[in-house]
């Protein structure tokens, strides 16, 4: 019963971690996941979120075993 949280690029550097593992509880949104993992840091509006590698909104409700990824705007190509 857990959720894996991943961070990339500048966000990974500013948080100082690339990964967290949280206990799963029902009805957690992506915002809740962020608050649990980073209680002292506000979730900046330009941060993108993917659950299981698909983009979602902050109010998306996560399931057990989901991988939630937070990252800055993408800059490939």
């Amino acid at each position, binding site marked *: 019963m857990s959720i894996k949280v*991943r961070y*990339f*690029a*500048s966000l990974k550097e500013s948080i100082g971690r690339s990964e967290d593992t949280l206990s799963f509880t029902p009805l957690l949104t992506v915002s809740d996941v962020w608050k649990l993992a980073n209680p002292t840091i506000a979730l900046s509006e330009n941060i993108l979120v*993917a659950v299981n*590698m*698909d*983009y979602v909104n902050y109010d998306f409700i996560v399931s057990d075993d989901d991988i939630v*990824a937070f*990252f*800055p*705007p*993408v*800059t*490939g*190509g």
Partner: protein
Amino acid sequence: MTLKIITQAFDPYQEIQRYQHAHPENLGHIGATNIFIGTMRDFNENVAVKGMTLEHYPGMTEKQLDNIVVEAHAQWQLIDTLIIHRVGTILPNEPIVLVAIWSSHRGDAFDACRYIMEALKSKAPFWKKEHLSNNDERWVTHNSTGYKTP
């Protein structure tokens, strides 16, 4: 339809030719080929850049690019598509991304190539960190739209 994420420098023209030779079934059908190559410049926002590191989210990159290619094939009549994107350390003048589209007619080739590039730039989870000539580093903060000249 081929998609490659690679860590080594590549020659886009060799890759295209190799791909064409490997797909003789397309011969005779192709009337239009549109190719986009994004290359690393040695200058960005008025600062000299000596290299960059491209981070990505393995798995999600492929999933997002696959979606984009499927969407392009649904919207236009395409014969084949090849996408190659570098990750890791990149030096000035090296290609970062190649998108090649083969179709019967030019409208499809142009539209699909541009669509894929814009979608890649806004959805594929890549992040560039520039290594400046003064030895500072900086993350590129966002991609601008390609539909208006910057």
